């Protein structure tokens, strides 16, 4: 199994972080909010994008989830503002 997790960012989350996707190390499962806390330390942009969880939504392997969801190595995690299509 991969020892990493793939992150996808959309809309202003992507703009603040400065990349649309990145791969970060992850050797064992953890909760999504723990992963986000780790991501915040990667750069000022990450901190600006991810600080307010209340303004964000997330999906693991394309399924919308809450912040207590478990993230495992090999997962694809997307973080984005509430959607505004239609």
């Amino acid at each position: 199994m991969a020892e990493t997790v793939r992150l996808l960012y959309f809309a202003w989350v992507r703009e603040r972080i400065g990349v649309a996707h990145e791969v970060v190390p992850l050797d064992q499962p953890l909760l999504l909010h723990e992963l986000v806390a780790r991501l915040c330390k990667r750069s000022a942009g990450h901190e600006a994008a991810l600080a307010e969880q209340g303004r964000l939504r997330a999906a693991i392997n394309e399924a919308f989830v809450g912040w207590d969801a478990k993230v495992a190595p090999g997962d694809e995690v997307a973080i984005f503002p509430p959607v505004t299509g239609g």
Partner: protein
Amino acid sequence: MFEARISTEPFDIGNEHARLARLGPHVGAIVTFTGQVRDGVLELETWPGAAERRMAALLAEARARWPIAGATIVHRHGRLEAGEPIVLVAVAAAHRAEAFEAAAFLMDWLKTAAPFWKKEADGTWVDAQERDIEAARAWDRR
């Protein structure tokens, strides 16, 4: 025929309607919804792959709820000028009530469950609307 797709190009409502209209003699009613850019220019971001799969899941949910003969969702992304179409939802059924309800259901859920984000010309990202979230949730209480 149940089809969900994303596109950077405008869609032709006449063509999309005609494809549903000729599904067969059981089709008596077709409802379409189109949304278009009201003013200024919009940049629409999407999550390709996930967007189509999410829209296909909404179509499956609509089929489970209503006896519908076919449905199409087309959602644009990229740069859209004022007056350009953004989204099409079209539903074919034997009778009008289920065509109207399924089309309204699909639109309400598209707004809050499909990965699209709108940015205005000045760089502002459009905020999600509480009333849209409420409209989608209301279907769960029916």
